[in-house]
């Protein structure tokens, strides 16, 4: 039995998205920058995709550029905005629970004379607003806060944060990768100057993403050597993937209500079942301010990687923030930021549901989990 509960890592490609992409992977191969008819035809396809995403995400289509994914979009925005706006200042703020591609882009800037502050979060995982307010300085150029955290699914109040940041005269960026389709993203209404998206998180293809860049704000390009995207991002337009992204985004919002209802019901069912049937468990982060696909659960006294591997042997795919599962052997800084103590940092499992999961799969998973937890607790040296 294969059960995939790691949908925040990636999702399967929707068959309808693949069908839309197919012609551009074979017959319609023209370079969208070419001025002959094959190129121009694909140029229209490119611009139609741009219009589509602009309409869904609520901003001027001229602000959207296609990238290789959210990591590139976040690198471009963090570094490009800071480099291009040094007349405004050299200070930036990112939240403590940003994705590593935001955090490390920001840290890289320190080496080049920029100043970075990290905005803390509350034990619920929400931005500590008074603390953020104190950190913003007259020379702060950019503040970056993700819409939904990838580990704990906690939703930030982007509109309020954007207002605070703008009142203080800085620009606001949000990595909205995990928000689709759980939040209605209207970039203009929310007050985002910059946003980043990745297609494979909502049943689109891997290797394609989106950056929204407020056309009024200067940005230094990361990838140069071509006139694509008005010189902001060089590289041949990846038409099949761009078509896939736009289609996946459209489907995600068209089917949003049924998707959310189904996932929320399954997720709540799963949480209740786990709490009822497995002792010594606790949910990490706020349940209220959380996307309906995410559960991040502490299983006291046993180690996350062992739980993950045991479940993996039973066909179940999940993820963990335990040190043993990380390249650098470091525990999750997100769980640390929400106040988990050292003895609990290695005992967490993230379950992220997707639109293809079923109640039967949840039943199987909780049954398996019960056995896994029981087995590992039998020989843990840590007393209750």
């Amino acid at each position, binding site marked *: 039995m294969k059960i995939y509960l790691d949908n925040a890592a990636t999702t399967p490609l929707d068959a309808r998205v693949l069908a839309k992409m197919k012609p551009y992977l074979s017959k319609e191969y023209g370079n969208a920058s070419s001025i002959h008819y094959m190129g121009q035809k694909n140029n229209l396809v490119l611009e139609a995709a741009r219009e589509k995403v602009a309409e869904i995400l609520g901003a001027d289509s001229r602000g959207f550029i296609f990238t290789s994914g959210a990591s590139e979009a976040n690198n471009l925005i963090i570094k490009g905005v800071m480099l291009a706006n040094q007349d405004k200042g050299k200070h930036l703020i990112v939240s403590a629970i940003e994705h590593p591609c935001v955090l490390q882009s920001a840290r890289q800037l320190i080496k080049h004379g920029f100043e970075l502050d990290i905005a803390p979060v509350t034990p619920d995982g929400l931005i500590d607003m008074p603390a953020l307010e104190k950190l913003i300085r007259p020379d702060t150029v950019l503040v970056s806060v993700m819409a939904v955290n990838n580990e704990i699914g906690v939703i930030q109040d982007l509109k309020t944060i954007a207002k605070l940041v703008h009142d203080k005269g800085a620009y606001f960026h949000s990595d909205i990768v995990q928000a689709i389709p759980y939040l209605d993203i209207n970039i203009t209404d929310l007050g985002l100057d910059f946003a980043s998206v990745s297609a494979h998180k909502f049943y689109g293809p891997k290797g394609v993403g989106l950056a929204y860049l407020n056309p009024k704000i200067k940005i230094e390009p990361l990838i140069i050597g071509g006139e694509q995207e008005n010189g902001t991002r060089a590289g041949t337009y990846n038409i099949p993937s761009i078509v896939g992204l736009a289609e996946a985004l459209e489907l995600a919002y068209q089917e949003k209500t049924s998707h959310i209802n189904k996932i929320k019901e399954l997720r709540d069912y799963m949480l209740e079942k786990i709490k009822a049937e497995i002792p010594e468990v606790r949910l990490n982060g706020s349940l209220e301010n959380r996307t309906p696909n995410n559960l991040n659960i502490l299983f006291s006294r046993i180690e996350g990687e062992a739980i993950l*591997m045991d479940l993996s042997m039973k066909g179940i795919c999940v993820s963990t923030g335990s040190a*043993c599962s990380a390249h650098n052997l470091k525990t999750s800084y997100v769980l640390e930021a929400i106040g988990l103590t050292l003895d609990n940092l290695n005992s967490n499992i993230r379950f992220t549901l997707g639109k293809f999961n079923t109640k039967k799969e949840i039943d199987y998973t909780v049954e398996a989990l019960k056995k896994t937890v029981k087995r590992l607790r039998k020989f843990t040296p840590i007393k209750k």
Partner: protein
Amino acid sequence: MSLNYTKKTVQHFLHPKNVGEIKNPDATADIGNMVCGDQLSFSLKVKDGRVEDIKFLSFGCASNIATASIMTERVKGMTLEEAKNYKWQETVEELGGLPKQKIHCSILASEGLKKVIEAYEQKQLKK
């Protein structure tokens, strides 16, 4: 990151040998890895200068469990001197290799073994 454990490692993770605590042990020792947070607790029974029985408890990943399992299997019956010199490389070899970032698990197991034998020797000296 490749976390492709060998079949043998998986077997020892799923069906670890020598888990638990020995009743009335001759010595016990706990060891923890400051880097990743893993912990092992060993209990030891000695007879005629040899490892008569050894058991472990684990708070750790699959390879932590598997390395302790195979190592305790191998050192049973050895003289204390032999067991103390049982190298972590032998554990890795026995398992058919470990992912690079999991090598430290085998080192932790060896250090724990050494620690429990030394605890036993200390106790003997005091007698």
